[in-house]
């Protein structure tokens, strides 16, 4: 930078308005004194600069970490660091503030600025309005982060569901028929406890659960009758036919982790009831079915006879082994054990009536996916049909159902279509709408005033 001949004054008074004289600080209330350093535009610019950096590095990291991990690491955090993914450059470590920290500071900065120095005039009404919108967006995003829950509902045509499933978290469900009642009693152990290991007791269970192994991601290996087979992993029925092998966790957008847990049950006398290997491969119908389809395709590969009944039978047999109920009987009551995606119950059912998958003629470019669904809500006496398709979700009972994916189970000679709905619960979903309207309106007002003044000034002379 140049050195001006006459050094500019350190403090230039603003063009208009009363000028606070040095030393007048005592006359200001204490809260203003505390807030004023937090209210500076310099802090705003610094925070915006860091925001740009965090968003940039958080985007770069997605190539390696995948969307979810990168999101948690850079945006849903207080601090983070970024390193290049290329070998030989990993020693570079850039420390960064996290999204929560930046969001909080920006919020504090904005509120402090308005509290301490911003004076309302009509000429500045636009700024006020858009800042209000920014506050709403920041707070709304925080609420969404805390309160929103995304899950999925997977069903084939004709099937119904009164729950949706988490696509990341699983649970160990222990089901039993409650005596003298038609209801099923469920004790669900959340994934957090399974990961932590150790022993789990529950008053309603006549046994304790000891977690011996947790595999975040696993693969089923068929125990073909071979001499090389080691002893089975567990004493549960599924282990006669399958070993579950731990594999590396995936972070890719289009892949999912399929966990397995190995547990030992002991009765209240301390006697072992056996060891169970429980996997989401068995507990989530969609996973078991996809395994069946891929076995069927493998058995049928290279077959030119056109007769696939053998392959279908073998795959069907493996599927039966994989999904066999894993039960334990204690005090004459049968308990079924299953590791399944975490469930969120809802007080109504949806039945998938029909799926429509349109493509543009002569291509495989999807044109539309549509699910026709029957809503059955006895408590409200409601029973009606509705279409859910792209860009047209169903909002019902505080939940929103979006058309997410569609597929066909090729295992059957007439493939069965299934639909996956994304189920979102977000009580604060309206805040960005209002926030956006405020900011856009505020900017429009503000720049409109500028523009009008500018044009008038140019026309005047």
């Amino acid at each position, binding site marked *: *930078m*140049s050195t*001006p*001949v006459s050094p*500019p*004054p*350190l*403090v*230039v008074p*603003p063009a208009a308005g009363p000028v606070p004289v040095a030393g007048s600080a005592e006359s200001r209330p204490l809260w203003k004194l505390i807030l004023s350093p937090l209210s500076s*535009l310099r802090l*705003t*610019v610094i925070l*915006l600069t860091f925001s*740009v950096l965090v*968003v*940039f590095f*958080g*985007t*770069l990291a*997605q*190539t390696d970490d*995948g*969307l979810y991990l*990168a*999101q948690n690491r850079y945006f849903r955090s207080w601090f983070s660091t970024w390193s290049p993914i290329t070998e030989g450059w990993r020693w570079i470590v850039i420390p960064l503030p996290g999204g929560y920290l930046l969001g909080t500071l920006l919020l504090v900065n904005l509120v402090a600025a308005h509290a301490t*120095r*911003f004076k309302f005039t009509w000429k500045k009404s636009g700024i006020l309005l858009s800042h209000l919108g920014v506050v709403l*967006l920041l707070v709304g995003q925080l609420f*969404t982060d805390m309160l929103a829950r*995304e899950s999925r509902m997977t069903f084939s045509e004709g099937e119904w569901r009164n729950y949706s499933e988490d696509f990341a978290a699983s649970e160990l469900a222990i089901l039993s028929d409650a005596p003298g009642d038609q209801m099923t009693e469920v004790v669900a152990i959340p994934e957090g406890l399974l990961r932590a290991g150790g022993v789990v007791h529950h008053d309603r269970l006549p046994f304790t659960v000891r977690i011996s192994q947790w595999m975040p991601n696993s693969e089923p290996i068929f125990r073909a009758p071979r001499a090389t087979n080691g002893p089975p992993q567990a004493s549960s029925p599924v282990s006669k036919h399958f070993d579950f092998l731990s594999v590396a966790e995936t972070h890719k*957008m289009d892949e999912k982790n399929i966990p397995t847990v190995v547990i030992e049950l002991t009765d209240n006398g301390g006697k072992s009831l056996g060891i169970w290997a429980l996997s989401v491969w068995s507990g989530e119908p969609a996973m078991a079915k996809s395994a069946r389809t891929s076995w069927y395709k493998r058995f049928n590969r290279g077959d030119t006879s056109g007769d696939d009944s053998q392959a279908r039978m073998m795959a069907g047999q493996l599927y039966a082994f994989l999904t066999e109920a894993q039960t334990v009987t204690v005090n004459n009551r049968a308990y079924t054990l299953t590791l399944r995606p975490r469930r969120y119950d809802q007080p109504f059912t949806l039945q998938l009536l029909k799926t429509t998958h349109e493509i*543009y*003629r*002569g*291509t*495989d*470019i999807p*044109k539309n*996916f549509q699910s026709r669904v029957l809503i059955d809500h006895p408590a409200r006496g409601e029973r009606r049909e509705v279409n859910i398709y*792209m*860009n*047209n*979700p169903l909002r019902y009972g505080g939940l*929103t159902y*979006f058309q*997410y994916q569609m597929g066909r189970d090729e295992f059957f000679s007439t493939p069965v279509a299934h639909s996956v709905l994304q189920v*979102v619960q977000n009580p604060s*979903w309206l805040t*960005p709408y209002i*926030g*956006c309207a405020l*900011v856009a309106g505020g*900017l*429009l007002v503000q*720049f409109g005033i*500028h523009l009008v*003044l*500018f044009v008038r000034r*140019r026309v005047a002379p």
Partner: protein
Amino acid sequence: MKKYLPWILCAAFAAWFLSTLPAPGDKGLAWGGLAQVPVVNGGRHQPFESLARNALVQIRDRYSHYDLAEERTVPAVEWLAEVLFDSERASRRKVFRVDHPDLISLLKLPLKNDSKDPALREDGKHYSWGQIVTEENVASLQRESERVAGKDASHQDAFDQAVRKLSSALSLYNALQSTARPRDVRDYGQFLSQFSRSLDSGATLRETLRAKYAGKEIPKDNSDPLLRIGGQVLVGADRESETGERSTLKIPLLLPPDGTEDWSRINTRLVGIRGGEPLPRSLLAWAHLGDAFVARDTNRFNAELRDYRDWMQSTFPSELSHANHEVFFNRMAPFYAAMTIYVVALLLALAYWFSFDSWLRESSFALVGLAFAIHTVGLIYRMVLQGRPPVTNLYSSAIFIGWGAIVLGMVLERFWRNAIGLVVGSFLGFVTLVIAHNLALDGDTMEMMRAVLDTNFWLATHVVIVTLGYASTYVAGFLAIVYVVRGVFTKGLDLATRRAMARMVYGIICFATLFSFTGTVLGGIWADQSWGRFWGWDAKENGALIIVLWNALILHARWGGLVRERGIMNLAIAGNIVTSWSWFGVNMLGVGLHSYGFLNGAFQTLLYFVLSQLALIALGCLPLKWWRSFGEHSTDTIAPNAPTAGKPPLRPVRSVA
């Protein structure tokens, strides 16, 4: 005389543009007529010509083919007719562009050769199907393709990409070869009548075969025409099927729905024909056209074509008229014309800065106006043809960014009359159209919209507004470049110009903030509508967010007095980097739901652009005494707290010079 020069120039360029509009007459074969015949490809109705152009550009990077041996330019329509009807002749055309030297040597292709004998000439870049597709080459290409397919896209090098490009060009060509008839059939009319005759009355091909051969030994000697012809039809239908293993072969649909519900491909249609039923009118027309072409019978070809078009006119008037309009659009090439005129306007405006002769500025303004009118016509014509808002893909975003930049440039010019708006507008108009031209090399630019994007409401709001945000951020950035370059290298940046430019940049950044913010949040609302997540930190969303943050940063830094004139200019130049990252950079990451194009070749271009912008920022940071516009007067320069745009800062300003 000088007074009339702007009008004369404008009239001359307008005349040049209009002269390209009338259709050239056909002397021999009626190529112009064939060009307009409607077909369906990629899910949309289009003229035969668009199919030909978009295929050729993917194979050869050009919309026509210059043939070394014949020493003439072969139009796309003629080339496609050869591929469809006369594969033998087509397989000698050197249309496959192969650039990578390793790939040329792997396939043992001939090097450049300026032989006197035209038939022996080679340009070392373009090769024919016959030269490339030998048994040995097919095996090596297969091997290489499999190796490349196993590689993550971000790890592919130039050779891998050359392999991928050639493989996809070959497979496209292969699909085209079996579009109108089986590849080696010379007389398709005869083939079809034999086919009709060999069907049992009332039975389809499959039923006839089953009735004749069920449980019997199938003779191997090809003596039965039913087996020979039926076999070819069944193999063809299998290739055409969309669910089959070979569904990557996207064969165009030639036959309009006469007797069927929808457009169809020839073999699929034949499989549904029953014995005794007449063959579809359209199928016969394509067969006879092809046979006349093979026999080089111009009169018969033209007569068949006329008949078919007359029939289309009476049966499918709207498809035919849509195709005619698209052919007209292809010929008009409005973006190419606008691009050319923008360059001339740019040069005139630059010349004005050196001579300050007002006819230069006025001519430039007139030409920018003319080019803008052509640009707008093209934009609207495309929207009508496609039935969509202006921006549907990366290609159209480039065209629209250019358009938005021109609007802003002309508005600036109306206010300040110093040719700065013209220079920035015409430069951005030209560059974005060049970018669009290069993006069009990937094939059809009017492809159908995938399910989630198939909504005109959000395309018209979110996409259009966010694209205007890009355009205005670029305009601010290029204004800043003009400031720095003129200030450092010329004496032209006087106080008045500087003040004017500071206001321009400030005003445009305000616009950019408004557009990029609104556009980005509308995108969030769209996402909330389609998958229930207002903000997903998707790469494209983040790119747009960075633009918003950057513009907000510039405004706050200015309001806080943290930067002054030069600082704002440097930040605005950095805005070019930020915008290019969002527009192209994030697509190269290959992550996220939004990334609609992987452009590795473009990565280097982006990198050079970023480096050039950094160099300009460094230039902008030079001490003022090295700026020619300031020179030894460097001290009287940018006054402390120069009133950049008449708005008092929000708080006492600390000088940070």
